């Protein structure tokens, strides 16, 4: 064998090790790996469910956790009332108790460092993992590296999945529990969240929000601090505003008469963002309010501050005005 040929064949072990390492990382970290894993298992005859590929971009499995937590809101014994001075604050205290019942309130108070998200993440992942991911995000030059959503790609895949399920869910629920209802004062729920036959199109499908029957020109308030992600107008929704509240929580307000904010505006909880109307596919003046966590919508009514208990009894009683 010539020297040149021998030289070209060197480092085979090193290369194979690198190939296995890289392929293994793809298998566990990426949608491509998840798809291949699914295909291989199906080919081998295993019963497997198709992976949620978007889960690699948006925190997965929170809906189930949140739904369970929302159900538990009725169980008042589970909900701690007041937070001690300099302790882990409400409403994240309640959210953590519901989403992470294994963590004791005393542990939350002890770990409290001024940021609910950072405290929860440290409790779930440990300080070392979090610090390392934050440092990596800083090295990549990312702004707000302390935020979970920013440094999430720099966590090990398994740790990110764990934190998605717990930290993001608790933060999302905390934001929702602290919400300001978009309409102040008395009003009727003209159509609740859930499957229904659309009053205009006649199609039976999910009504992904709640319709609040209010006169044209009624002030519409931001339910929580956030940033205006989009404003626009289309045939179905009329004039609308979308607000991103962070932690994968988004709200949208449709059929508006007037939009009083523009894209990129930072809004605070309770601030006036629009006036309700009757635009788009609508059979009467109302506000269609949608609460979205991750890629799915959530029924906001059981979470309405005054009506957390027994809110569902009121659903379906009113006339359906469309939406």
């Amino acid at each position: 064998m010539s020297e040149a040929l021998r030289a070209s064949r060197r480092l085979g072990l090193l290369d194979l090790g690198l190939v296995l390492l890289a392929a293994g990382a793809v298998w566990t970290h990426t949608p491509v790996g998840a798809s291949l894993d699914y295909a291989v298992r199906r080919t081998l005859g295993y019963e497997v469910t198709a992976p949620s590929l978007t889960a690699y971009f948006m925190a997965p499995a929170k809906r189930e956790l949140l739904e369970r937590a929302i159900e538990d809101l009725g169980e008042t014994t589970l909900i701690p009332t007041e937070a001690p001075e300099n302790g882990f604050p409400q409403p994240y205290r309640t959210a953590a108790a519901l989403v992470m019942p294994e963590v004791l309130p005393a542990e939350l108070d002890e770990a409290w460092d001024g940021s609910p998200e950072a405290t929860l993440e440290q409790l779930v992942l440990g300080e070392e993992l979090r610090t390392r991911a934050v440092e990596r995000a800083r090295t990549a030059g990312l702004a707000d590296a302390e935020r979970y959503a920013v440094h999430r790609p720099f966590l090990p895949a398994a740790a990110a999945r764990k934190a998605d399920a717990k930290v993001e869910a608790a933060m999302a629920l905390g934001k929702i529990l602290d919400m300001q209802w978009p309409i102040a004062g008395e009003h009727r729920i003209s159509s609740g969240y859930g499957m229904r036959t659309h009053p205009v199109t006649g199609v039976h499908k999910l009504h992904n929000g709640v319709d609040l029957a209010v006169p044209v020109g009624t002030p519409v308030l931001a339910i929580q601090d956030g940033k205006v992600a989009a404003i626009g107008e289309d045939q179905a929704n009329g004039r609308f505003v979308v607000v991103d509240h962070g932690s994968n929580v988004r709200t949208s307000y449709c059929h508006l008469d007037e939009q009083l904010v523009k894209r990129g505006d930072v809004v605070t909880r309770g601030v006036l963002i629009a006036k309700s109307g009757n635009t788009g596919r609508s059979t009467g003046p109302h506000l269609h309010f949608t609460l979205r966590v991750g890629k799915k919508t959530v029924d906001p009514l059981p979470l309405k501050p005054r009506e957390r208990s027994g809110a569902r009894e009121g659903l379906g009683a009113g006339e359906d005005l469309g939406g």
Partner: protein
Amino acid sequence: MFRALVAIDQALGATRPGWRWIGEVSLVLLGVHLAADRLDDAVLGFLASMGWLGPDGTPVAAYLAVGLELLVAARVAAILLLSVGAPPATWAHFKANWSIEGVVRPLFWVPTAAAGAWVLGMAVEDALSPYLGEPAFWLGVIAALIAGWRLGITALGRLIGGLFPPKRRTDGWMWALPLLLTASLAARYGLPVWGWL
């Protein structure tokens, strides 16, 4: 023992063209994923700025990000498979066979392979850190550098060496947008340099 190891090393080296492309594709896919992690936000921002984002736009952006990642993965795998056994890159070969495809290949490859090498380094650090503590960081750096050398640079050479004579210089323009978009996101969000600059 040493002789046996050398023999195994040489035997594996002889079969390298059959499997190294898997590692090369994987390296780039790790970089592509780090880039795509930011893509859904970029897509959302773009759709909103164009007025095309409806109230239900968030899932659309995530599906687009997944779609782009899978599309780019398929393209990268195809390019690498077709270039197995290609001669080493030379300037003369590139000059004779350049096209949009030929220009885009290195522009895509360099940032995504570098980002992928960093992901691999981070994975090594994460795996070893519980046992080794601080030195795990440096082992991660070494792993990233070796991966960049053994999988990134060698593949880049083959990608250019494997360019076919184009029918037109505009060949490959359709792939330019997704590949360059991914590369620019990998360059901006997937390289451990911006924090120091």
